[in-house]
């Protein structure tokens, strides 16, 4: 589904991703772990199309298509979803209006009929309940004044509404207490299916107890320095990233 080859990206004249290779197939769950500043979010943002980052080399294929040539909205319509590490606050735009526009622009692109206000409310009612969110969240401006945990839940709620094929979750677990973490993990697991893939970025192995990955990769200094099965996460939890970082040659 997703093939990343020798991806280099920089921002403000500084190289952040220094040759990433990664292959994700439909149905798989991959986890990316790594120390602060190693480039995890940069990778996630580049995949979603953030123009702050310049891709200087390499390519990314999504369903065989050149992902990097697509605009962010085209990627979303093609089924890519990024749950932001730091969801953006947008005062003045209600969650409801925002999300209905998003759902409908994606449905339109897929040749589906747009959801009217009534249907949208019905569908979203169910998903909010699942995530333990109060329906009043819909009326509030997007993320404005939300607590950290509420923002993360709101990201997962959006994912549930948009039904992506490739979901990238950037530190969705950070700042969540254990109950919230379980709810979020349930929400993610409910999405797992043979034709979907999930890429989880996290610092903590804790999340991976609930969203069990097929593969774990360690990102350090802009490169994937180690890949393995889910046991790698446990190993990292015990030993930390020391050693791994230093194996990166300059």
């Amino acid at each position, binding site marked *: 589904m997703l093939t990343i080859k020798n991806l280099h990206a920089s921002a403000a004249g500084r190289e952040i991703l220094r040759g990433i290779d990664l292959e994700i197939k439909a149905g798989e769950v991959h986890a990316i772990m790594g120390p602060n500043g190693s480039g995890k979010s940069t990778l996630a943002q580049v995949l979603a*199309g953030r123009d702050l980052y310049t891709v200087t080399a390499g390519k990314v294929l999504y369903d065989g298509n050149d992902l990097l040539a697509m605009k962010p909205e085209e990627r979303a319509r093609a089924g890519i979803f990024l749950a932001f590490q730091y969801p953006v606050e*947008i005062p003045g735009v209600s969650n409801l209006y925002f999300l209905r526009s998003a759902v409908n622009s994606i449905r339109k692109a897929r040749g589906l009929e747009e959801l009217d206000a009534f249907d949208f409310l019905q569908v979203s009612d169910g998903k909010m309940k699942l995530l333990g969110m109060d329906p009043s969240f819909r009326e509030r401006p997007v993320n404005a004044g939300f607590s950290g945990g509420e923002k993360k839940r709101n990201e997962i709620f959006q994912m549930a509404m948009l039904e992506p094929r490739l979901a990238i979750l950037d530190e969705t677990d950070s700042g969540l207490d254990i109950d919230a973490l379980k709810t979020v993990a349930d929400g993610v697991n409910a999405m797992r299916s043979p034709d979907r893939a999930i890429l989880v970025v996290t610092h903590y192995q804790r999340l991976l107890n609930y969203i069990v990955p097929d593969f774990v990769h360690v990102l350090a200094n802009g490169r994937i320095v180690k890949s393995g099965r889910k046991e790698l996460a446990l190993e990292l939890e015990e030993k930390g990233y020391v050693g791994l970082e230093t194996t990166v040659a300059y």
Partner: protein
Amino acid sequence: MPDVIEQQDLYVSSFRALERKFAARDPRWLSRIRQEAIRSFAELGFPTVRDEEWRFTNVAPLTNVMFQAAPDETDSWKGEGLERALAGDSPDIRLVFVNGHYSERFSVIRNRAVGFEAGSLAALLRQKDGALEAHLARYANFRIHPFVALNTAFWQDGAYLRFPKGLVLEKPVQVVYVSTADETPLISSPRTLIVAEREAQATVVESYLGLGPGVCFSNAVTEIVVGENAVLDHYKFQGENERSFHMATSQIYQDRNANYSSGSISLGGALVRNEVNAVLDAAGAECALHGLYLVRGRQHVDNQTTLEHAKPHGSSRELYHGILDDRATGVFNGRVIVRPGAQKTDALQKNRNLLLSPDAAIDTKPQLEIYNNDVRCTHGATIGQLDPEALFYLRSRGIGSEDARNMLVYAFAGDILERVRPAGVRAWIEAAFHARLAQGLSPKEVL
């Protein structure tokens, strides 16, 4: 192209040509005022950028155009485009003026309460309403302001609204000034007088619409008296076309505990200036001035407000939001004066601007003149761009770049739009705002 002095003389001589006609119709007190006003204009002349108050607004493009006063053709006018341009709800009072002339046919006057005057100023002058002489031209100062002077000398007609003591009106009253200019550039001088007597409560929507493709110049003056304990909500919608000129002064006089609020929505012409001056001349008066301007291309919009706190315990709230695209330019000048006797004044002023293009520009400044220590005055001005993170966030959810941009612009405007109280008026203004946005301010494709 005539120079400014010649133009000024042209205005004076066209007044000379009209004065007999005016004199035949006007009461004597009014003739005297017109004469004084034209003398004052002859002395003042058109402002130049050397005048402090006009530093950022050059009126040369306006003085270069040879305007004509439209003849009264309201009887033959078919009202093309009018219905569509009006606020949706059916009003009890709607006064329509076409190129400065009252149109009985398109006006609505029904269910009028006893003592409530609503109609054409020119017609009501003939009925010798004492309130008219007491108020007309007593507030907007033609001795210092050239465009107010011109309006005062030349006005043909306009709306007169007098809400008698204690009258509470639910439905907004509509005052509509329409221009139908085609090939010939047309000038009109709409004159509005609104008197809300003690304890009256009303909403007035004053709109300026361009229904013709040509150039018009609306030189408007609105005087508003808000009596003791009266509540007046006033919306002004400026929507002439992008080739037109609009110079308007709203002059508000507030009595004890009077509550006045205004919402000034400007979608811009080629050159637009909205002045709103409120004098809180008795204790406990409250004034809220809200404004929203949206300009693009080479439009220029200038908002000048003066809030004069003359007596104690007054409060004022002022919030103006501006959106400028392309090479459009704007000015916001918010003057707050607190007189020595106005202790316990509470004044707040904010002007926020959103620049959608690197070539758009705004000059914004607060001007505080505080002659009393026992006051609270806060002010702030910001100039910013659309938040690229917010844009990306929206687009990453599948929303197209233009829609994303409009969503953010609309959210920025929402702070002002949500303060428009009557739902029908709000929907109408929102629709006009949306339509302007949807025409594409200037869609920029970004990957």
